[in-house]
């Protein structure tokens, strides 16, 4: 973006502005675009979710406002804007007022490192992935503020649940990504995408594989397990249905949002849907190659890039459009999966949630990290790193051996942990029964 701004201002108009002004203008334009995109994503996703869940429940869904109901979110927006803003008398007014902003701001920040297409990333931070999750953890503060400031017991319980859940499930999410960070050797999201060229096998692992943009991490055992664990953790972070304990409407009204109305409530809603979009987006970026797909790599190779300044700008546009189409279709597919899961499963209890997170998901992801280390050792290391026996194997053989070994490790770990988990749950129920028996015998 900055080179374009520079081109326009300093070359076309010849104003000779300083570089910091150019940088500022470039970042401002990008920020404005992102801030415009985020609410529209939210508007679209609300309609998308309602239509999809309606179909799953043998209904039609909102289809009256505009063709197929596409203006329904606008009608909802108008409604929520014109609603009265009610603040409880007992509330802590300032904290009550700031809390929605503290919840929304991090979700907007997270767009900073999200790549939309080839060369289309607002800022390519070399610690992008860590930034993404560090910022997302800030919204927990906002939730706690909202729950506490409302001086409502439901709100406080909801906030406590939300924070406990977010803090617990951040760990498996980050550890599952850690496995992939080990493989790519980089925390940059752009690097992670460019690693996923190839055809079912990443061309970074095996150089001879043609680059069709299909060397996604999901096709490796490590990536698959990380994907499953990450997606479950993402459901919990986004407060999606099997884990929508913080706002369980049948138990605690609306959780931390109970005392909010009007556009403040709308901001929580916005934050939630934008966060869901971002979690789906990051899932598609890290495990499904983001904008990677057949044709994008070839188109981008013809485009104007720092590597290839003689390219045609048409290819920039084509590669960008195709990349964004791939990226968004994957993202929306994952949102569909979220809705699908919402349609299928019931809400967990808080202790079940904690048990599942700490006793099943975290051990599984830890095993996955070890698998990732084995994968890296088998595909990348040589005699210099103390792994002499792989010398002389062809890359494909090394990849195949790594695949089989990590598959065996992960499958074994899954089955073993699942058995232990099921056993512990059964034991727990038995103990519950025993408690019941003892209670009965006392009386």
């Amino acid at each position, binding site marked *: 973006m900055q080179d374009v701004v520079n081109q326009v201002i300093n070359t076309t108009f010849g104003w000779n502005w300083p570089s910091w002004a150019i940088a500022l203008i470039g970042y401002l334009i990008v920020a404005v675009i992102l801030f415009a995109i985020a609410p529209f994503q939210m508007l679209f996703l609300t309609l998308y979710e309602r239509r*999809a869940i309606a*179909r*799953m*429940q*043998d*209904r*039609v869904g909102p*289809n009256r406002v505009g063709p197929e109901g596409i203006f329904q979110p606008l009608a909802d927006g108008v409604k929520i804007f014109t609603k009265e803003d009610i603040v409880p008398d007992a509330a802590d007014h300032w904290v009550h007022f700031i809390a929605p902003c503290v919840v929304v701001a991090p979700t907007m920040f997270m767009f900073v490192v999200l790549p939309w297409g080839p060369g289309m990333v607002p800022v390519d931070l070399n610690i992008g992935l860590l930034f993404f999750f560090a910022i997302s953890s800030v919204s927990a503060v906002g939730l706690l503020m909202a729950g506490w400031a409302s001086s409502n017991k439901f709100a406080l319980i909801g906030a406590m649940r939300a924070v406990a859940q977010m803090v617990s499930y951040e760990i498996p999410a980050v550890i599952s990504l850690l496995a992939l960070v080990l493989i790519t050797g980089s925390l940059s999201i752009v690097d992670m995408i460019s690693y996923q060229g190839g055809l079912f096998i990443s061309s970074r692992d095996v150089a001879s594989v043609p680059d069709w943009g299909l060397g996604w991490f999901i096709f490796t055992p490590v990536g698959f397990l990380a994907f499953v664990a990450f997606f479950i953790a993402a459901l919990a972070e986004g407060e999606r249905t099997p884990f929508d304990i913080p706002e369980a409407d049948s138990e605690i009204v609306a959780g931390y949002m109970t005392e909010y109305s009007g556009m403040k409530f709308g901001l929580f809603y916005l934050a939630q849907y934008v966060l869901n979009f971002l979690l789906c987006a990051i899932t598609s970026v890290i495990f499904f190659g983001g904008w990677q797909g057949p044709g994008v790599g070839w188109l981008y190779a013809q485009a104007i890039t720092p590597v290839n300044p003689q390219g045609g700008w048409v290819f920039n546009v084509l590669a960008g459009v195709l990349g964004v189409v791939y990226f968004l279709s994957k993202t929306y597919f994952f949102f569909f999966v979220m809705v*699908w*899961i919402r*349609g*299928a*499963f019931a809400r967990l209890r808080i202790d079940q949630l904690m048990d599942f997170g700490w006793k099943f998901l975290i051990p599984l992801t830890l095993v996955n990290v070890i698998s990732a280390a084995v994968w890296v050792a088998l595909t990348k290391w040589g005699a210099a790193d103390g792994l002499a026996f792989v010398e002389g194997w062809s890359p494909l053989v090394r990849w195949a051996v790594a695949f089989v070994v990590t598959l065996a490790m992960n499958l074994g770990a899954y*089955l073993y942990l*699942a*058995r232990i*988990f*099921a056993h512990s749950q059964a034991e727990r129920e038995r103990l519950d029964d025993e408690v019941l028996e003892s209670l009965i015998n006392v009386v």
Partner: protein
Amino acid sequence: MDIPRGNIIVMDRRRGKLRVGQGLIQGLKVVWDHWAGSFHKNENFSQIHGTFTVEYPDERLPLPQTYRNMPVLLYDDESGHELCTGCYQCQRICPPQVIHITQAKDPVTGKMVPAATEFIIEYDACMSCGFCAEVCPFDSIKMDHVYELSTADRVSLTMRKAQLNRPISYYASIAPDLWAEVQAGAMKKLQGSIKRRPDVIGLAAVLTEKIKARRLELAAAAAAAPAAAAPAPAAPAAPAAKLTPEEKAAKLAAMKATNANKGVAAPPAKAPVELSPADAKAAKLAAIKAANAAKQAGAAAPPAEVPAELPPTDAKAAKLAAIKAANAAKKAAEQGNSE
């Protein structure tokens, strides 16, 4: 859509031994089947995949005959006579007490007559239980099928008699079988009521051309009956028959009554004795009819057209005038009798 009753639909629950995580996958499969199947519309309720939605404002389901929403009052298409006799059964049974009836009174004697001058149902509080229709001995009150009753304010849901009146043909069209069951009895009772009190049975406010014609016919018949015996009242009756609009009926009746009064008072005791009661009765009937007409015409009745010695400015005054005229006629008849 046909609803199979008594059929047991066996659903495939896919029971069996489940390995870890398998149950979750099966749950997802069920939801997926519903999603994938939701793009076609179901024909009957035995299908479990697919939508049942009827997109209401665009398409509507046919309502069953026994569907009930809000009560309405029926009147006879031909004569315009309401079936309601104001018996208060519905008002008594109504659980939310939203039915209010004003019984009609004979303007001459002041006694109750089997008709309702006003009949109010508060639709806003009505709970559509249908007790009123069940209890009505004259099959006058029936449950309507109209359900789009939204209004901007509460008051416009307070329905008066004029808004409640529906012709029998309307009810027969929405619930033909139900009407066929009760038709004979209802019509018989109506005829009986008409016969007993030909003119006091309330006339439906929703007047059709047919009803107007029928009213004129009745007026002409009433005028013609005394005309054969007593020429004095017949003379003013003839020009009155040409005045078609109903508000002129008030003037007609009042004039007739006055004329009858004059006719009997000025040429005393010329008429035969057995003829006098008939004459008096006709005059009285005309007066009552005038009262009814004046009521229905409301303020529209032009005061200027009422005789000069009785200058009323509103419907009440017109009624008063009619009653006065009737009293005069009665007095005249008594004079005739005494002689």
